[in-house]
């Protein structure tokens, strides 16, 4: 694997990690309040 391809793969991993974190924050805010009211 050349340097550019491995850098792109690392870029994608960072991006997916950050996107999952953002999604988890969003869902946890709502689910936490949903469970509190249930």
């Amino acid at each position: 694997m050349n340097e550019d391809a491995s850098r792109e793969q690392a870029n994608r991993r960072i991006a997916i990690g950050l996107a999952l974190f953002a999604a988890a924050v969003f869902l946890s805010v709502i689910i936490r309040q949903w469970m509190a009211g249930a």
Partner: protein
Amino acid sequence: MQAAQHAAHAGHHAHDSHGHGPTGLMRWITTTNHKDIGTMYLWFSFVMFLVGGAMSLVIRAELMSPGLQYVAPEFYNQMLTLHALIMVFGAIMPAFVGFANWMIPLMIGAPDMAFARMNNWSFWLLPPAAILLTASLFVPGGAAGTGWTLYPPLSVQMGIGMDMAIFAVHILGMSSIMGSINIITTILNMRTPGMDLMKMPLFCWTWLVTAFLLIASMPILAGAVTMLLTDRHFGTSFFNAAGGGDPVLFQHIFWFFGHPEVYIIALPAFGVVSHVIPAFSRKRLFGYTSMVYAIAAIGLISFFVWAHHMYVTGIPLTGQLYFMYATMLIAIPTGVKVFNWVTTMWRGSLSFETPMLFALGFLVLFTIGGLTGLVLAMTAVDIQLQDTYYVVAHFHYVMVAGALFSAYAGLYYWLPKWTGYMYHEGLGKLHFWLSMIFFNIAFFPQHFLGLAGMPRRIPDYAQQFADFNMISSFGSFGFGFSQLLVLVVVFKAMKGGVKAEARPWDGAHGLEWTIPSPAPHHTFEDPPPFDPAEAHG
């Protein structure tokens, strides 16, 4: 020499690239170039700044004298809400994202942002959101009139304009999160070899921390407004007291986002000033390492102070004390930064071109805003001043003088690199002095109004507040119209004038100054050599 060869190489590629691809409007719609996208962000933010500014003039016209003059109270509330939402999400944030797009790849020696097509999407989400916000004025019931905080129960009860604001916030949040992912990935993974994180320009550090703040806080706002939406239309009762919900819960969630948001705006402003002050002091930045730790500390603490916006909601005394002390703690890293900027200037070879004037204006006015922030941090004082004009004065010293003055410092500092021509120094200085004088005329009297008890978000007021309001309105009109000078300066610099050298400021350091002015369309296709002597920007 090596840098010059690289620049020539970059210029050659730039020339090559212009023969292909779409032209005209399609070039801008489909562009994935970080410089094009940065330019679009900056123009978008300026247009929104004018729109939000026009709304503030409606507000100040109404407040020029007691009684109701020009607009109905409902419309006044809508102007106030849209002014805030547009200025925060449409003007200030996109302006600094524009700087980030233009300068981060140039500063770290990257060919572009990590995800160039996502970068295009991040920008093009903004115009629909802006249209949703402004068009909501024309729907039945008008725009949201809740203030930018969108507090229930009013936000649960309002008309379709509120839904449009909620969707606009969702879209703006998506744009911010995508932009942040791009910035973090670019900074972490695309620096030129040899540029360690602790050798990185400070503007990149401020954006790295800001992007993490955005990713952690924007989904919280998105969650809050989503719950608002389901309360409005799908029968839930997260915040609706009639169904067992809690309106104060919204305030907690909103401010858990809202306080980091303040630093999302302030940190990149700190970054810009950390480049401008050393450049015009002909010295390297004092205390780089402590600056980095201060940025990180401010970012971290910003998540633990949210309830200082809510002292009057009935939180327990121990809670009030905790939030008071935690808030005061932020003064320590902020003080470190102000100390370092002043020490950078100490015994420097100072000159006062327009970027430096705006940076110094930022330093003085932001420090005043920070000090009134400390006053408001004290629970006993804040309970008296809550929702008065003192708060309005405080956050305009932080937002306008802090963020806008710093943005102007960055604009004048980097404009020669963007356009290839020097701006008109006389007009730049005139712009600074008019802004500085009128800003203080507009906002300093608001401290006195607040101390005397004038409430905010009210279109009418008692006779005793008339004089200071007249002065404040006079200042705000002067401030507003003097901002049009920027257009003249920028258009003049775009049309021509004195050619800018690659490094037009003799005290400036960093990779961005090794490429020609204007910056070629494509730069650093091969990682440039990094000279540790140029570290820290």
